[in-house]
């Protein structure tokens, strides 16, 4: 693993600094007196709980928000960025937490938006743009077609495009806000490779992640934020894992990897499994999926980026109409599935795309939580206020959602708390089968623990759970067994007890080698041997 080899001796030059930055939104003090220094050739890790103010700080650095007080200096000179454009022109670029690209435009268009190569001074040189995009895409081993519509790519691929853009802009300061949250481990390796190279080129990097192992793998220095303020800074040596977590949470924690081991108490003896999927097909993305989940069992759906996990969930759930195959819930066939019918039959689904398929912006936390439950808390179409309030209150309590109250707008919550509200929505219908697509995406250590606790409790209470995660370790710790998905087809499974990530990758790699998909092979190759992949 690459670490801060060249940087420990002399302190490198400071590039971008903030001094005493504060920012409030109404009564929320998102940032208080934050000072931060980004140095050339250094990866600076920014960690903190959900809602600690990381994304807000980044938006201040890139000119999206103006600080209420405090100042920015770039190369020792005081600067103000009045827009992301201004920051971009000064060489400060960001890959934002929520992917912010244009789905209807091509990959190349997205990479070169606002700095397109030109012809005759005014016209965009499309040919050169595509060529250069192809170059960049190849250099960073992104397996995407530069002419493809961005929206046709998976979230992970879009994240990589976002990164490619930052690089192509020739940024001197590159900010990555949870860039890995949508990536599979193979993709993460490619990303880290890129980051290492950029560091070597003397670029100042800011890295935000809730995956502490990644932070330790990559960062030269940490800043820990809590409640909008900087509480600690230091090198990885000065801040070992336990200290870091304590600083983040403001208390001791059981530790990031203290996943409770599963006891393996699945009701496999049951006559009918809680969920049985047989040879499910949908277009060319879900080609042949079969799986069985018993009550009290937690099954992980493992696969590389774009292997069809999301599509599998959506097809089971009836959000898209299956072309072939059967879904049985507790032995009874689920026909003509639609989300409403599936929910009525005891399914619940959490989308990975919180922003466009999860939250109802403009509505309150409470209204968000009860959205799926309305038929059950109403009589003759009239909603019972009392029941609604009770459900919301219990949900907020049970999941520990940090909100000013049930009537606060969902958009004022931090990402992690929004996610918890959505999990609460899934649970509100008292499902028997839970389909969770990357439920811990972008949520902090503490919240993750809580989500795990909740999921495991639910399983203990008799639910069947199918879950994906872009973090292999998490998946192994959380689940009883894995079902491996490759190119839209299930390829058997493996129990998780005692397994480690490399075992899973081996399974994936083996399968991938059989198929003709070169990219999958290459990705896995990259995981195991970055150096070798470089030559490929």
């Amino acid at each position, binding site marked *: 693993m690459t670490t801060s080899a060249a940087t420990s001796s002399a302190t490198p030059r400071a590039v971008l600094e903030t001094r005493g930055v504060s920012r409030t939104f109404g009564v929320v003090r998102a940032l208080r007196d934050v000072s931060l220094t980004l140095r050339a050739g250094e990866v600076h890790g920014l960690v903190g709980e959900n809602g600690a103010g990381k994304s807000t700080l980044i938006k201040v650095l890139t000119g999206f928000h103006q600080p209420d007080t405090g100042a920015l200096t770039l190369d020792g000179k005081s600067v103000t960025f009045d827009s992301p454009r201004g920051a971009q022109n000064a060489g400060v670029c960001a890959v934002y937490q929520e*992917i912010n690209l244009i789905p209807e435009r091509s990959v190349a268009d997205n990479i070169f938006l606002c700095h397109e190569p030109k012809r005759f001074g005014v016209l965009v040189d499309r040919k050169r743009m595509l060529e250069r995009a192809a170059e960049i895409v190849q250099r960073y081993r992104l397996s995407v077609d530069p002419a493809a519509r961005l929206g046709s790519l998976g979230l992970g691929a879009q994240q990589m495009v976002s990164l490619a853009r930052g690089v192509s802009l020739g940024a001197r300061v590159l900010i990555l806000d949870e860039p890995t949250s949508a990536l599979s481990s193979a993709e993460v390796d490619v990303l880290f490779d890129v980051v290492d190279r950029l560091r070597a080129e003397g670029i100042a990097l800011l890295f935000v992640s809730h995956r502490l192992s990644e932070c330790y793998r990559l960062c030269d220095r940490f800043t820990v934020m809590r409640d909008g303020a900087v509480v600690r800074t230091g090198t990885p040596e000065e801040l070992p894992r336990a200290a870091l977590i304590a600083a983040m949470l403001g208390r001791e924690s059981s530790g990031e990897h203290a996943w409770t081991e599963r006891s393996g108490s699945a009701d496999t003896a049951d006559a009918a499994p809680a969920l049985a999927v047989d040879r499910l097909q949908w277009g060319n993305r879900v080609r042949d999926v079969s799986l069985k989940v018993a009550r009290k069992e937690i099954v992980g759906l493992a696969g590389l980026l774009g292997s069809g996990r999301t599509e599998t969930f959506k097809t089971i759930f009836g959000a898209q109409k299956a072309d072939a195959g059967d879904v049985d819930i507790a032995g009874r066939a689920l026909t003509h599935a639609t989300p409403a019918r599936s929910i009525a039959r005891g399914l619940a689904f959490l989308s990975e795309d919180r922003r466009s398929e999860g939250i109802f912006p403009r509505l309150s936390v409470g209204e968000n939580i009860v959205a799926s439950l309305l038929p059950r808390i109403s009589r003759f179409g009239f909603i019972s206020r009392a029941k609604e309030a009770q459900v919301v209150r219990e949900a907020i309590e049970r999941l520990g959602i940090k909100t000013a109250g049930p009537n606060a707008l969902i958009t004022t919550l931090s990402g992690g708390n929004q996610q918890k509200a959505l999990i609460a929505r899934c649970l509100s219908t008292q499902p028997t089968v839970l389909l969770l697509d990357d439920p811990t995406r972008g949520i902090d250590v503490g919240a993750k623990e809580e989500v795990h606790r909740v999921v495991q409790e639910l399983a203990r209470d008799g639910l069947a759970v199918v879950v994906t995660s872009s973090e292999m370790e998490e998946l192994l710790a959380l689940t009883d067994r894995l079902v491996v998905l490759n190119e839209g087809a299930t390829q058997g499974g493996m129990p998780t007890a005692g397994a480690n990530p490399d075992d899973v990758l081996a399974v994936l790699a083996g399968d991938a080698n059989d198929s003709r998909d070169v990219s999958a092979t290459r990705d896995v190759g990259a995981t195991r041997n970055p150096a070798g992949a470089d030559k490929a």
Partner: protein
Amino acid sequence: MAINLETNEERLSPSTPPQAPQSPRSPQSTNPGGGGAWRTVLREHSVYFALAALVVFNLIVTPGFSNPFAARSLLFEAAPIVLIALGQNLAIATRGIDLSVGSVMALASASVAVFLPYGIGPALVGSVAVGALVGLWNGFLVAVLAIDPLISGLALLVAARGLAQALLGGSRVNLPDAPAFDLLGAGTVGPVPIIMLIALALAAVVAFVVRRTTFGRYAILVGASRGAAFLAGIPVRRTLFLVYAVSGTLAGLAGLFASSRLGASDPNYVGVNFELDAIAASVIGGTPLSGGRISIVGAVFGVLLLQVLDASFIMNNISFTYAQILKAVFIVVALYLQRSGA
């Protein structure tokens, strides 16, 4: 898979960044300072203040405005617009729009004459039913065929008026003297027209439906995020279908009211440009065009505001040309004040 749907669809409305909601419900959005608080109140209730100010202005300046008949006459004009504003509000809450309402009024008005030979009862019921039919068709286009409501409404706006005119050969047909038409057209309780009472009662029903029923909540959820609503198991299509059907039905009723008031079926002039008034009233009343929120009381007051505005121009004998400019300026300023300071 489209990401960032929410910003993508901010288009109909002020493009507030999603992270900076300016909702009355958000405790964060109220300014902590005491000075800002009353300004926020003023902004959020601007339609009431504006109406009050305009009424006071008219009472002082405009001859004849204090005459109780002035209020009566205003309310007669406003009643049909209140009805179509109700439907419009529902459509807007789902992040849609219903441009067909004015023409549907005309079609309903023509239907009164068409059904008259079968009796007064059939004429009353028939006209509203025709409105409902157009609404159902619009709902079908929007919900099942997924045509953009702006376009389906536009096509119906043109076609429904054509049909109305074709039904009566383009001419206006006088209605016979019948107690039912007299009651609707001239009946009052105190100074308040019966049709206004009916419109207000329906407004109360719609407000209740929006607040307390699943259908109302569905409409708002569908408007707030179509994608999330679908995955949350909300019957998106049924909701959209119903919303436009309700809007059409209310427009049919509005057409009946207008005909009774005129004492005639008039396919040419009933409801002309009323859709625009209804939309403007909704927006002024606090229902943003970007959906996910609704304010029925605000819309009713928005309608009254625009009516009083029109009346103050006519009663002060301000030439139509200048009146139009002033009305435009008024709308822009009213909405600007609602936005700024946030």
